[in-house]
């Protein structure tokens, strides 16, 4: 059976909370609170996910196969409560990457128009 190739385009553009959620899971499984903290830290507080917003997004992405639910285990960095962890699925990774490429392309256009300065060589 030929597996149909996954097309991330229909999911784009992602809203900032959607992109940040997928990005948070890109480097490993996390539970909900950890996702919220990482997004807040990485965006310097510009994107703040509430519990309602986060879990509604998680449910949607789980239904669409972009995220999978993992086991429940305690987080030693927090209290000892068992928390459900989430993992970025392959399709989710493709969607996040496609969104990043879209934004990169937009940044490139802005630089070509001198809206943004060119990056300095490292």
């Amino acid at each position, binding site marked *: 059976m030929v597996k149909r190739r996954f097309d991330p385009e229909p999911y784009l553009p992602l809203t900032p909370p959607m992109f940040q959620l997928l990005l948070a899971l890109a480097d490993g499984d996390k539970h909900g609170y950890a996702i919220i903290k990482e997004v807040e830290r990485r965006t310097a507080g510009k994107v703040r996910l*509430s*519990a309602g917003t986060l879990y509604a997004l998680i449910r949607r992405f789980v239904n669409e196969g972009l995220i999978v639910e993992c086991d429940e285990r305690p987080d030693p960095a927090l209290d000892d*409560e068992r928390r459900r962890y989430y993992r970025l699925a392959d399709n989710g990774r493709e969607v996040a990457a496609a969104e990043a490429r879209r934004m990169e392309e937009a940044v490139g256009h802005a630089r070509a128009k001198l809206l943004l300065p060119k990056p300095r060589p490292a």
Partner: protein
Amino acid sequence: MDKDIPQVRLFRGLVRALFPADFRAGYEAEMTRTFRAQHREAGAAGGVARLWWETLAGLVRTAPREHLAQLRQDIVYALRMMRRTPAFTAIAILTLATGIGASTALWSIVDAVLLRPLPYAHAESLAVMWNHWADNSQAGLSNPELFDARERLRSFEVAAFTKGSANLTGGGEPERLVATHLTANGLSVLGVRPVVGRDFRAEEELAGNGRVVLLTHGLWQRRFGGSRAVLGQTLTLNGEPHSVIGVLPAGFEVPNEFGALQRSAVVLPITLDPAAPRHERGSHYLSTLARLRPGRSLTAAQAELDLLTRAFDREYPGEYNAGYRASLTPIRTEIVGPVRRPLLILFGAVLLLLLIACANVANLLLARGAARAKEIAVRQATGASPARLVRQVLTESLVLALAAAVVGIGLARAILALAAAAAPNLPRLDEAGLDLAVLAFAAGLAALTALAFGSLPALQLAGRDTAPHLHGDRGGSRTALRQGVRAALVTAQIALALVLLVGAGLLIQSFARLRQVPGGFNPDRVLTVLLSVPSSGYPEREPVVRLFERLLDGLRASPGVVGAGAVAGLPLQSGLGDWDFYLEGEIPGPHGSNRPADWQVVTPGYFETLGIRRVRGRSFSPADRADAPAVAMINETLARTIFAGRDPVGRQIRMSGEGQAWRTIVGVVADVRQDALDAPPMPEIYMPHAQFLSFRPGMIMRTLTVVVRASGDAAALTNTVRQQVRALDPGLPISTVTTMDEVVARSLAEPRLHSLLLGFFAAVALVLAVVGTYGVLAYQVTERTREIGLRQALGAKAGDIQKMVLRQGMGPALAGVAVGLGGALLLTRLLATQLFEVAPLDPTTFAATSAILLAAALLACFLPARRATGVEPSTALRAG
């Protein structure tokens, strides 16, 4: 684990309140844990307020989306289920569509006719004033009574109007217009202002000052293109110039025109004589309006009116009899009162039909629910909560009901068109339509209907023990309950159908009897045409009489014409009221005889043309001219009541009032139903047109309806009549061209509509109830296949099986007929005022409809009973 602090409990409570059950099953615990951690951190950093603000905003934003997402899922699933079972879906939609469509159509009519505000400002303080006499007849006011009321009543302001006609000539084809003559304060009493120009002035009520006219909106658009330049233009009405002073708003109607086939085209000032003697009070020709003054109630106004009428009796002894009174009727009651009850009965009938449809579809869904038991069990086993499944079933019901509403709108449109064609004179029916409010009603009704028929299958689902179904076990312990519910639904359908059938049977019988009532005339091949002769060119009586004589002579000589005559008031279309009369030997006094009879003015040839039988003596002839001895004819009722046993021919009678002549009765004709087929004939006096003298001095009978009997098609004579009139006077328009058959049909329009609609609803109810009975029994036979096989294996014969199945089917049907009879006994009393010569508890109707319903139910049970005897025992036992 720490006990939760109040804020965390509050958060959990909000999640439970806002989010759907399925979502909460997966994420409530996680959300609570996450919030707990957030709250702990925020508390330490002093950011609790901000946390709550963001959390609440998030909950409010996302919870509705979760509900919508589930609803979308449920709708998609429902549509998939409907596509998988097209026959079931079609039957359910059509069944519900009949109920929803009929209810929507009737609601539209009830709303337009009974509920919508009248086109008058503060209509709740507007009333109509009537005089009432001892014999229960009612009439308008006379000229002196109007002036007395205006001068002496404080609780309300009084206006008056009459209906007439005006011939519009000059500038195009002459046109006869229906005209309302209104007092100067008429528009302000009605709470209406001209949209262009001005109202009448008080001085324009005086003779000679009234050469002004207000145009109705329709005439303004049609004849003058809606141009404001019409103001100040001169129109020639009845040969006299009239200045256009204004235009009335669209939809303006005087109260007696709602439902009239002819609405006024122009409004003219009425001519009143304030100097007329106040003791001549007998001519009650003014229709009267009353506007309650601010702060006055109808009760107080009626009390003041009662004082005034008692004063009339004292001040004018002999003029009013012992039973005289005047009344105020609220304008809405006056306009729609007579149709309120029949309309509400019809509305109740369609709601019964809708209930039958709901019971029918509920049974279908219950049967389908049992067939889907395994599917439901699998869904529950894979995580769907009972609440989720109940929500799914209710959504399916809603989708079915909305689809039915869309189809039902088409049926509603057809019913409205039927009503408009069958009863065009129902007041305000032309305002009924499928506007947004009515469509919203249909949608709301669909939602209620979904709840009604979907709740039983949903409850069935909620109480289901699904485990046995996973293993193919049908869960036999609940079978008896399921069968009981279905049997109860069949009983309900049969009972409701019987109520509708009895009601329809009574109305249909009543209508059939009404149609049989002899009108006293023969309407076949008779054309009727209204001709109104204006005073300009015909100022005296003789030219008017000669015009009609020459017209009728010309018509009688025309090819295709068997006979021609004319009458002032055509039977079943209009009467002229009543008039006191004296018998020979009596001395006419100033106050009348208190012995009224209805009266008519006819030409020679009228009775013969309309087929009114002459019983005694002779008919009017051309020799009965103004300079010949005055004659009259009377009808059988007058002959019987006044001259009982004696020959009236040769006797003398005289109409009351100054200047009237003693008339010799020359003939007696058979009774004619002048007012309505269901109204008994009144005593009637006929006077020849050439000798007629009005009770109002100087008034000439200028408007007659010409009747022409054709040898062939009556309508084909229209041009003949038009040509004959044009040959006499090209400026004379003819109008109200119709056949006598149409006049009779129009008089039966409302009873025809009621019996037609109720008959249709009852027929649909019968079909639904019978199909419902068949469906349930057929399904029950399938359910009992194993049991039937077992019985046959143990020796039961085919006849025994048939009887068993028939008992199962006819049991609920018999119970339904019993309940239905009880309901019909209570409800048919409401029909009493609609019935003609049929009792509300007519035993023949009750027995016949019960027999029809039982026979239909027996037929519906017969097929499944026959199928049951075809069950092979060995196959049945293996299939279980």
